[in-house]
């Protein structure tokens, strides 16, 4: 529905609300609205988008690069990239898919650069204090007391980067093959193959924990 600006007699003019809501109105807005607003320079709209999705993007970065410091850098740089490139985001896919792609590419770039100077074994463990309790009653610092989890974490690092990215997006973030293909810029066939090879490699490692 579109209405054009014909003059309408209005008397008296309605009062304009002055005080902002105690809860930012952006919290109630959908991603599409926030993206449109942010693209028009609304910093608060972008702030809400970043706040809303930062945890998922950080999880992805952490699982791809394997340590908190690099994951924080990758997240920060990716969000700034997103702000700068918002005018190129046309909304053909979900904002999350687009943001996942930015994070994935930045992490894979970082890994390529790192590989020249640092061996995989030197990568530090995820700091336990960065892990929120997964559920009520879970043991504190679950990652430390769960040997199987530690073994999986170590095995993940040995995967080729493209396999690890597809595996993490599928098995840890729960995305479908089509969305992973869009994020990684690959075909669904390639994604499916990488996930399967990653599963087999990891299963081989995890047999000793069964």
């Amino acid at each position: 529905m579109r209405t054009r600006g014909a003059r309408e007699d209005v008397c008296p003019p309605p009062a304009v609300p002055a005080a902002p809501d105690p809860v930012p109105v952006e919290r109630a807005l959908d991603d599409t609205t926030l993206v449109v607003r942010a693209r028009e320079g609304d910093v608060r709209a972008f702030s809400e988008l970043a706040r809303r999705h930062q945890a998922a993007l950080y999880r992805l970065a952490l699982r791809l690069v394997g340590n908190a410091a690099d994951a924080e850098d990758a997240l920060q740089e990716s969000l700034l990239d997103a702000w700068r490139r918002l005018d190129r985001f046309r909304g053909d896919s979900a904002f999350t898919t687009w943001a996942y792609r930015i994070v994935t590419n930045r992490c894979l770039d970082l890994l390529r650069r790192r590989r020249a100077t640092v061996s995989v074994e030197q990568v530090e463990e995820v700091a336990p204090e960065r892990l929120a309790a997964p559920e009520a009653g879970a043991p504190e610092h679950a990652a430390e007391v769960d040997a199987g989890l530690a073994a999986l974490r170590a095995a993940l690092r040995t995967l080729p980067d493209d396999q690890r990215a597809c595996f993490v997006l599928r098995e840890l973030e729960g995305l479908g093959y089509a969305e992973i293909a869009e994020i990684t810029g690959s075909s669904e066939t390639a994604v499916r193959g990488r996930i399967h090879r990653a599963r087999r490699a990891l299963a081989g490692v995890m047999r000793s924990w069964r």
Partner: protein
Amino acid sequence: MEVGRGTPGATGTGGTSGPADERIEPLACGRDAADVWDHAVEGTLDPHERECPHCRAAAADALGLDGVVHRMAAERPVPPPSVLDGVMQAVLDTVTAELRPQDLLALDSPAGPARLSRPAAARVLRHVVDGMDGMRARSCRIEPVAAGANGGRPLGNGSGTAGADPFGVTVAITVTARFGVDLASVTARVRQMVVAAGEQALGVPVRSVDIAVVDLWDEP
């Protein structure tokens, strides 16, 4: 979000049609190994897959890995607040540094020429729409118009003077509405509110308001 697993589009695409590094070798019994894996995790193994030793071995691997993968997926690492703080500070610095003259609106100020950034002005108008029951603003574009356009006459009852107002603007706004609201009524109300906000909050005569309802939403 879960669109691939177990759906027709998610299976049968591996096979042998892709390049060698994309190929999924079938099990010795001929079954697609990735399909068997998915079926095991989903609990949808068929009679062959439950009896065949090759499929059972693949399913055992799948289930052995699946448990620990679920535990890892349940972890919820969170970034420290400093990350988002740093991002938003950098964004604000960028916005300030990159503000262009054409991004500013001229305001009719008794204290002399004043200018306001268009994003800030748009934010004020969006806020007005957001405050209306069942309405949310999406895009809000504010453009200055040449004096004399639209008869040089502001829409509201403000202080603009016909033909002598260099500060008038046109507003093009898109809104989303709650399902069930009377669109004709609320868009008329949006027009009133935008005109009033332009004059009361910004001091800018609004000469025309172009409103498009682009989406409907329902209360959760």
